[in-house]
């Protein structure tokens, strides 16, 4: 999935190492005291970086973080309760898919590309789901589709708003073929049924939200927020540039581009995200 994204240093094609490193407990970085900003190349003291939610204090670059990490920045301490975990099968008997799943589970400590449950945000209860890019590019197979769907169903049953923080790459999980495609329909319908309840759904787009995830639940939020400089779109920039043989605009498919083109409600830094989410929830009691 990764290959469809531009390999601009800014978005850092997050080398697996870097991605892992941010997940609190991996080894690579704990040995080092400093991290180099992928955007402005500033050297940042790791403690500072962590304190600033992995946002470069110099240029505002948002490092990619794991779902678990993000959870900490978004929900009230000790408020998160996970739903029942689900694990993937191999509906197409796609070669090496089970091995890939096992590897990703080991690497990310997640069952699949989503972390979802109930939590409170500045005291306001909500269903909160977070896609993790490090798990097969945050792509949507049956598990992600089912968990998202159950999340919205849970919202209806428990009369809770839903917040989904997306950051899945190409969106589709190729290895599940048509089953992956159908999760777009399933989740979009879940949003539709949820919508009938009159409850609030906030979609938060982080880098990168593309393909089938963007073309289903992620762009159906009552309110759509985005982190700065996230890649947001349907077709990956490489495909667009190969198909059209045109030079892409400088800010093509960034959050800022989406805002200007009327596709999102507003851009919020990671540091301000929790408060804005809390306020929006409190406006929709």
């Amino acid at each position, binding site marked *: *999935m990764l290959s*469809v994204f531009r390999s601009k240093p800014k978005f850092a094609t997050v080398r697996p190492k870097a991605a892992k490193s941010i997940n609190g407990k991996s080894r690579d970085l704990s040995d080092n005291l400093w991290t180099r900003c992928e955007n402005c190349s500033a050297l940042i003291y790791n403690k500072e970086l962590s304190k600033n939610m992995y946002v470069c204090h110099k240029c505002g670059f948002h490092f990619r973080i794991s779902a*678990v990490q993000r959870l900490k920045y978004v929900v009230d301490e*000790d408020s998160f*309760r*996970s*739903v*029942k*975990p*689900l694990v993937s*099968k191999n*509906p*197409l008997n796609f070669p090496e898919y089970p091995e890939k799943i096992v590897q990703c589970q080991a690497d990310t*400590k*997640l069952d699949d590309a989503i972390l979802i*449950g109930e939590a409170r945000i500045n005291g306001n209860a909500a269903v909160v789901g977070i896609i993790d890019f490090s798990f097969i590019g945050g792509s949507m197979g*049956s*598990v992600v589709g*089912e968990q998202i769907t*159950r999340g919205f*169903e*849970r919202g209806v*049953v428990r009369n809770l708003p839903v917040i989904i923080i997306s950051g899945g790459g190409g969106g589709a*999980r*190729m290895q*599940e*073929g*048509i*089953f*992956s*495609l*159908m*999760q*777009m*329909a*399933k989740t*979009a*319908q879940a949003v*539709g049924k949820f919508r009938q309840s009159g409850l609030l759904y906030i979609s938060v787009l982080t880098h990168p939200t593309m*393909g*089938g995830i*963007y*073309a289903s*639940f992620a*762009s*159906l939020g009552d309110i759509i927020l985005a982190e700065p400089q996230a890649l947001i*779109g*349907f*077709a*990956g920039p490489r*495909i*667009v540039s190969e*198909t*059209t043989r045109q030079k892409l605009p400088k800010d*093509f*498919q960034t959050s800022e*581009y989406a805002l200007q*083109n*009327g*596709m999102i409600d507003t851009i919020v830094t990671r540091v301000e995200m929790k408060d804005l989410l809390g306020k929006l929830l409190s406006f929709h009691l």
Partner: protein
Amino acid sequence: MRTVFEWEQPLVELEEKIQELRNCIYDQEVDFSEELTELERKADKLRKSIYERLTPWQRVRMARHPDRPTTLDYIELVFDDFIELHGDRTFGDDKAVVGGIAIFDQEPVTVIGPQKGKDTKENIARNFGLPHPEGYRKALRLMKQAEHFRRPIITLIDVVGAYPGIEAEQRGQGLVIAECIEQMSFLKVPIICVITGEGGSGGALAIGVGDRILMLEHAWYSVISPEMCANILWKDVERASEAAELLKLTPTDLLKFEIIDDIITEPLGGAHRDYEGIGRQVKAFLRRYLSEIRKISVDQLVEQRLKRFRKIGQFQEKQLVEPKHVKLNSEVDDESGGNNE
């Protein structure tokens, strides 16, 4: 010049031989009828053995045959009195999508589908049948119009995908596909989707949420095209054929997976060999399924439509061992449903 695939070569040669022999009958006054019968028997056998054993990749290529009937061809073959309606009422009229009102068995229906061109000029005008967001918005507008006037909707799907262009992205390609999918799911009218050729990813699904989903014999439907899949897996587009196998994109696979409801068999050798024949076939299938779903109340239809997609997915509940690797505080019971296979 007619496009001939490599696997059709022996058949084409045989057919040419038969034609030569026929010409001889007229030219000379010799009796070749016995040889002719024998050759035609052979050709029939060959035809069957070729077209019934197509590989997935061959099927994809059949679906892309330049002479294959397009959406407007099917509209002409299957419906009466088509009135094409244009525009999305916000930005433009996408010629890669056609739609309007037509008569099917004396009743008005709304028909919508992506439209490929028949030659280079038309293909350029129609952007090779690759829709922009305004094309999907037009489709959605016409679908809502159909709902307003309680007309059934028939979508004819033949699209490699939504157009991956700068302006398409700018105007919200992903967002509009999501909106189509969501809103189509709740329309209170009967919807039949027919995948007539290519069913490429979200660009097809955007108009593919129906009460009955039918698929032509030589059509394909997949989350990703075989080429792009091969490109991602092996960085080698030439291995598309292998990818096509892996993706399980044929009607037979999809029927088994319960993604589609039925397969519309094509005239031997493909729809492009017999327009009238495939027209009759499509008409017969539409008649059968439309009369079937017309009997169901629209509220029930919507409920069934939602259920149909709700249950798609293969996963298992995880054994509840201590989830020590993620420090989550505790687990809550999951009251919600779902199809745990």
